[in-house]
């Protein structure tokens, strides 16, 4: 047990989305302060959306984040549709599910292969992975490319997609590309099962009792359902805001949140803990061993959860692409030009909430809650727990400091935080 005083500062955490700093202060062997600060410069979307046409705002907010651009586009589109009385067609719903699955495949793959895998091999970068495991990088490129190609087929492109819009899709998938896409998705299944095995065998552990919250959907499609928590809450999408409150984080460009007065976690681990039974039958058959791990309180199981979600998104996409005969459809037009509405989806990193107010077709206010912002308080408490665990070991001061540096980055990375997103909290202006 340590009795030392130690300040550890990590400037610019690497292999996460966006910029964040971490300071840990230890006095007399006890963690007295954890500062996890989001260091992204603001781009003032809360002002930029005001007065803009509601139909154009989803494209504007998709620029909040390059990584999960499709998630912002989709959640905001849903909020606009609910505000303007638009009922989407079954085909639009299917295309939107495919769009979200394509995002999950490439975004989770980026996180697991490029951000997390280097920690498995004790190297700095995916490019430094030892020769005998280099095949993993080739697999990474294939899996990401399959997700990228699915995005391009369904949504136009993978970053700032162009086909998805309020009321429908401007293009439908080209028929001749559907069979090769299915074939490509099938070809990456064994690679993704290998990835599941890697994270199943990985012995990293940090357990701490917390609450998990997710939008629970019937077919694990990330789009429509009820928000549930491991504490038993069941909430309509439009009421989610009433269950959250903001926590100010000093010197940070982002605020945190608590759910019903306590810290909580959203994301893949929350989805698997709350809704694994809704996964695709093929996923449940082939990933049964991995699914048995959930529910889990080990934050590092978020990595395994992401790997299983890639498999599910592949399996559900194959089924949807096989089943539907896509035909060109008219975009559904608004029935009203005033009102307010809420769109909630599961983004790769967790529940994403948009609340819009519209007057005469123009956005009066927009309010959104980002997954990483919801996780910030939980992340800070996990840092505190993990450093406390390290202080209990009998290492000398330098070893302790090095371990803290390495382990904290690894642990924060397990959340797959997105700081570009987290700095955006759109405040309500009722004027």
């Amino acid at each position, binding site marked *: 047990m340590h009795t030392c005083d130690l300040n550890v500062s990590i400037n*610019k955490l*690497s*292999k996460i*989305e*966006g*910029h964040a700093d971490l300071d840990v202060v230890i006095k007399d062997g006890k963690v007295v302060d954890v500062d996890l600060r989001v260091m*992204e*410069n*603001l*781009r*003032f*979307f809360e*002002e*930029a959306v*005001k007065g803009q046409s509601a139909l154009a705002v989803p494209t*504007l907010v998709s*620029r*909040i*984040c*390059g*990584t999960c*651009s499709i998630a912002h586009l989709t959640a905001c589109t849903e909020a606009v549709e609910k505000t303007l009385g638009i009922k989407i067609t079954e085909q639009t719903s299917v295309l939107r599910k495919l769009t979200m699955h394509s995002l999950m495949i*490439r975004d989770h793959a*980026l996180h697991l292969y*490029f*951000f997390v895998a*280097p920690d498995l091999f004790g190297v*700095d*970068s*995916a*490019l*430094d992975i030892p020769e005998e495991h280099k095949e993993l990088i*080739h697999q990474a*490129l*294939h899996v*990401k*490319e399959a997700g*990228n190609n699915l995005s391009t087929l369904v949504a136009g492109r*993978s*970053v*700032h997609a162009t086909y998805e819009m309020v009321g429908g899709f401007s293009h439908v998938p080209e028929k001749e590309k559907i069979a090769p896409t299915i074939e490509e998705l099938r070809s990456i299944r064994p690679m993704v099962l290998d990835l599941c095995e890697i994270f199943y065998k990985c012995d990293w552990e940090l357990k701490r009792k917390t609450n998990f919250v997710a939008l629970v959907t019937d077919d694990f499609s990330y789009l429509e359902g009820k928000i549930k928590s491991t504490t038993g809450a069941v909430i309509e999408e439009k009421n989610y805001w009433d269950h959250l409150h903001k926590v100010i984080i000093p010197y940070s*460009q982002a605020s945190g949140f608590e759910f019903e007065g306590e810290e909580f976690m959203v994301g893949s681990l929350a989805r698997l803990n709350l809704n694994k039974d809704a996964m695709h039958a093929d996923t449940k058959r082939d990933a049964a061993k991995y699914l048995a791990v959930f529910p889990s309180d080990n934050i590092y199981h978020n990595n395994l959860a992401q790997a299983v979600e890639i498999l599910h998104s592949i399996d559900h996409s194959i089924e949807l692409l096989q089943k539907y005969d896509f035909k060109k459809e008219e975009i559904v037009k608004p029935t009203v030009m005033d009102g307010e509405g809420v769109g909630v989806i599961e983004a790769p990193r967790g529940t994403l909430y948009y609340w819009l107010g519209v007057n005469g077709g123009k956005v009066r206010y927009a309010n959104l809650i980002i997954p990483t912002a919801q996780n910030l308080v939980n992340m800070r408490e996990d840092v505190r727990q993990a450093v406390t665990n390290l202080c209990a070991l009998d290492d000398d001061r330098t070893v302790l400091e090095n371990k803290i540096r390495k382990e904290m980055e690894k642990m924060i990375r397990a959340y797959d935080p997105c700081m*570009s997103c987290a700095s955006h909290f759109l405040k309500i202006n009722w004027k």
Partner: protein
Amino acid sequence: MNQPKKKVGVFSITCDEGCSIYLIEIFNKKLVGWLEKMEIKYFLSMKDKVEIKDFDIVLIEGVISSERDLREVIKIRENTKILIAMGTCAMTAFPSGQRNNFNAEQLERIQPKLKEFSYLPKCLALKDAVTVDDNIPGCPIDEKKFIEVFEKHLNA
């Protein structure tokens, strides 16, 4: 005789990092070949940071929004042979510099934040602050243009 590998840096300043993410998608097809000619020295999305010095080619995405951004861009310029503006933000200061188009009322509302975190009065494109050697347009970057411009400098 084999040429020494070009030292490449990829930097993100104020933006959504969409160009970096899209670059990693371009890597799906091109990385293996490019690695024969380049060494990625700085790319926070892929590896831990190193000192900013001795680059052959640097790609920067985003707009210069704060004093910190400006200091970083000047330092990068002093330490690279070729500086490429990657994407529309770096080339034109938009869309990430959208506050440049705000009206007086909007500017007044964001003023406290601008002061608190030492933002510049206006967002700048890279060329407004330093010499830029080449440009890759698009939001995110256009794949073909990226490959064309990047390979030109990689093979130079």
